[in-house]
């Protein structure tokens, strides 16, 4: 399935699984997306290879960054006017607590959505959404038909 068709089908079916399955990296990382109450929730299923600090143990910071960026991208594919996967201009990840060896969830919200650029804030958490383990601010370039 082509990406554009997959985006349309995902919006139609209220389900991002088919779209997520097209992305090799999210498959490899065990990142999935759920649509719940009209919002997109990212999930990084715990696996031993995601560990960065084997002593604690704690998740590799890069895996949390990957979850945050992916959640922001799928939220954009879900709700923003973009015809293809938006391009990440930049992302700043703040690491707030160490990520324990368990599943991690994430959600994203648009702080601004312009014609060309979307500003997105995303947080990642484990047990309690009010105690995030990481937060990110990112800018994305939307892909439109007049490009």
């Amino acid at each position, binding site marked *: 399935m082509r990406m554009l068709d997959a985006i349309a089908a995902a919006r139609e079916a209220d389900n991002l699984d088919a779209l997520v399955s097209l992305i090799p*990296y999210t498959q490899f990382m065990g990142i999935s997306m759920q649509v719940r109450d009209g919002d997109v929730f990212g999930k990084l299923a715990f696996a031993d290879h995601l560990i960065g600090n084997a002593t604690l143990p704690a998740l590799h910071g890069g895996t949390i960054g990957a979850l945050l960026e992916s959640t922001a991208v799928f939220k954009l594919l879900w709700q923003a006017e973009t015809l*293809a996967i938006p*391009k990440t201009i930049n*992302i700043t990840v703040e690491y707030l607590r160490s990520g324990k060896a368990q599943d991690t969830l994430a959600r994203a919200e648009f702080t601004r959505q312009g014609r060309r650029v979307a500003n997105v804030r995303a947080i990642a958490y484990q047990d309690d959404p009010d105690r995030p383990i990481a937060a990110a601010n990112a800018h994305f370039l939307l892909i439109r038909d007049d490009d």
Partner: protein
Amino acid sequence: MPAMPAPPGSDPQAKLEFINQWFASGVPHNRELGVHAIGVHATGITSELPYADRLVGNPETGFLHGGAITTVLDATCGVSVLIALRKPLRIATLDLRIDYLKPTTPRSNVLCKADCYKITRHVAFVRGIAHHGDEADPIASAAGTFMIFGSRLTGNKDKDAS
């Protein structure tokens, strides 16, 4: 990140092997991706992320996923702080900003070079770039800050574990 002892001696090859024991083999996610150090300088390292199909983020273009670039830059910046510290101290990433300067070239390895250019009592400042072999033509640039725990100056009072 757990503390890493200062690499021994001045032989670059021995230094690299020492760093990779910690960096490439001792960090499970680095090991999974095959991330390893290929060069070392006074304030950091150069690392390599071998290309793999499973790291692709956009199947229509073949570009690598930003998460893979973030991961290798985070790891490379972190170990560069440990190199620059020259003491076995524990550190934790405070924040990391990545600017994506251009798409990756499909099916190409990624090299990262980081430089810990300032260390204060509690905080280390690092910059890094990711490229395909030409540092003057980077794919991404990174700026990170890291908390330093348990230095003699701080009296070993920090208990935060990350």
